[in-house]
């Protein structure tokens, strides 16, 4: 007899497989619902054991899906849910039996035997064919008064033929029924087992052709004495409840998908929560190095990548607050940013909160269906009262810098206009009226000094704060910048926080002068 076990708990799956193997069943094991579906729709089984809560496709959905395709193999559902509702759901989905975990092993085996008997042409535990008798409760086989000692495979082979003694079993059929999909027996294996079984039967007095061969067709049990053979009753119609059609199908599918998605998220979270915490630890290690001024670029890049991955992962699970904390770290740890040791403490604060959020999230309670709207609400400046944004115009011909740095600056409450072609400087300036202009020095068409000089000569731009931001830390260059009218000179790399402080200082000083 061949059984498919679909159970996501690896320990339980292994235990069930071992236990059922010991009971002479051939076992295939699947770790999730979709794999279970693949197995069940590919191979022939005599019984399915399904866990109720499975990743990817839960036991209820799998059961329903199988029954909808006319699948009549008995299904035993296992679940830790002991409520009447859960049991009704399981049975309504098409299960033939429902057992609550943790279960009593002998009871499980008895129920499996009962279900298998119900599915066979002979539902009784003791089957006899003339003088040959087999008791599936005790695994005893007698020929007359003589007991037979059979191997597990010989026993199931004989039981299969006794339970359907009018059937000719082909080699393929036998292989399919008695060996799991992970074993690779061939026709010769069947012949070998048949030969040994015949030998043992003849040793206790059975005729050599008790197991007969129908050439080109297969093997069958020759009925010795019809009057003493248990004739198989008609197969019972399995007590399968019709699928639940109370809910309109599309709505039902949608709800089912959502329920399964939530289950999948929970299952995946259970597996990957520790990975998230490992990423947190990786970031913490980088922050420790930052604190002791030992942070190297590769380690910063690794920490940035960890934070970035956390943004995607946590968001996918609908953990918005945690995602936002990871996003803050992702922005602050960007490899192009120069980090100062005194920043480590504030980053640790984010990290501690993030760790706490992950540790406290044991279950994903809700589907992350509305995350987009919520994320937009978080990012949407109109959704919360905030002071008027300071408009910063950033002129730099490095596209990567313009793609990344504004992102960080925006998190400090600035509105950032970027321009990589200085030839469009005036049109952008006059069209947007920024509060501050930040200029790079070396640009291809017009350099920053020229732009600053022009600014200082044209009303009304003479008083707009101009800051230079350059990788050039040469004192002469800085002197030249101030001589053409710069208000400040900053060196790359710089943190968004430092730049933010300098912008605010500059604007406050101007405001105080005006007042």
């Amino acid at each position, binding site marked *: 007899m061949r059984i498919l076990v679909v159970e996501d708990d690896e320990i339980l799956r292994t235990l069930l497989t071992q236990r059922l193997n010991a009971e002479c069943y051939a076992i295939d094991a699947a770790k999730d619902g979709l794999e279970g579906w693949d197995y069940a729709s590919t191979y022939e089984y005599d019984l399915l054991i399904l866990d109720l809560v499975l990743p990817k496709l839960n036991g209820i959905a799998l059961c329903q899906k199988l029954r909808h395709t006319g699948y009549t193999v008995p299904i035993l559902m296992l679940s830790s849910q002991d409520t009447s509702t859960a049991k009704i759901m399981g049975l309504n989905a098409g299960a033939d039996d429902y057992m609550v975990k943790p279960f009593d092993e002998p009871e499980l085996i008895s129920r499996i035997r009962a279900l298998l008997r119900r599915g066979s042409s002979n539902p009784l535990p003791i089957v006899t064919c003339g003088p040959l008798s087999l008791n599936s409760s005790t695994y005893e086989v007698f020929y007359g008064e003589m007991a037979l000692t059979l191997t597990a495979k010989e026993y199931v082979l004989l039981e299969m033929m006794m339970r359907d003694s009018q059937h000719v079993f082909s080699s393929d059929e036998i292989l399919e029924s008695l060996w799991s999909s992970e074993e690779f027996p061939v026709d010769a294996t069947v012949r070998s087992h048949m030969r040994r079984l015949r030998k043992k039967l003849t040793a206790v007095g059975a005729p050599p052709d008790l197991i007969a061969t129908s050439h080109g067709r297969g093997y069958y049990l020759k009925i010795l004495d019809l009057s003493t053979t248990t004739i198989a009753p008609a197969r019972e119609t399995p007590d399968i409840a019709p699928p639940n059609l109370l809910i309109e199908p599309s709505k039902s599918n949608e709800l089912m998908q959502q329920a399964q*998605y939530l289950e999948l998220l929970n299952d995946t979270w259970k597996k990957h929560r520790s990975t998230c915490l490992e990423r947190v630890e990786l970031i913490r290690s980088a922050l420790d190095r930052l604190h002791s001024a030992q942070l190297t670029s590769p380690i910063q890049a690794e920490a940035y990548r960890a934070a970035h991955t956390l943004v995607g992962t946590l968001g996918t699970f609908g953990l918005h607050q945690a995602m936002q904390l990871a996003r803050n770290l*992702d922005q602050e740890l960007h490899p192009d940013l120069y980090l100062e040791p005194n920043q480590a403490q504030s980053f640790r604060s984010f990290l501690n909160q993030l760790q706490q959020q992950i540790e406290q999230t044991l279950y994903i309670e809700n589907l992350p269906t509305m995350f987009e709207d919520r994320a937009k609400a978080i*990012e949407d400046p109109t959704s919360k009262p905030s002071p008027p944004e300071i408009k910063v115009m950033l002129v730099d011909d490095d596209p990567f810098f313009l793609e990344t740095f504004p992102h960080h600056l925006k998190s400090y409450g600035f509105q950032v206009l970027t321009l990589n072609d200085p030839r469009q400087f005036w049109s952008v300036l006059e069209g947007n009226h920024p509060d501050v202009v930040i200029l790079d020095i070396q640009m291809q068409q017009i350099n920053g000094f020229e732009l600053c000089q022009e600014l200082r000569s044209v009303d009304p731009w003479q008083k707009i704060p101009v800051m230079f931001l350059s990788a050039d830390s040469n004192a002469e260059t800085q002197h030249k910048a101030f001589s053409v009218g710069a208000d400040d000179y900053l060196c790359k790399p710089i943190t968004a926080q430092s730049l933010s402080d300098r912008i605010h200082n500059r604007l406050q000083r101007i405001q105080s002068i005006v007042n």
Partner: protein
Amino acid sequence: MTEKCILIIDDDESIQTVVEFGLKMTAGWEVISASSGNEGISRAQADHPDMILLDVMMPEMDGLATFRALQLNDQTRSIPVILLTAKAQASEKRLFNDTGVSGVIIKPFNALELAEQICNVLNWAESSN
């Protein structure tokens, strides 16, 4: 709708799982996974999927480098690629689009709507499943 084969290249196993679930469940598509750029290129060559979902931020070979390698390969050049990224800025999205990918999907995404998003990006007929 004809069954599609989708290759997801992402070093985050939980994202692979969620994508696989979402696409199988809502569209019935087959999903194959790779955890790195190099593995993804090998799988793309071997399995020739109908499209590739490619994470941008991966160690060693990142998504853009993987995309470039796919473009240089005759066997994989024609496979549409959609980038997956947690970067949400519109300017960054434009930058990615400029590379020649078929589209960008921002993480986090709803796995139950992912097939629909892919269909929209690639102008595939809507999944009937």
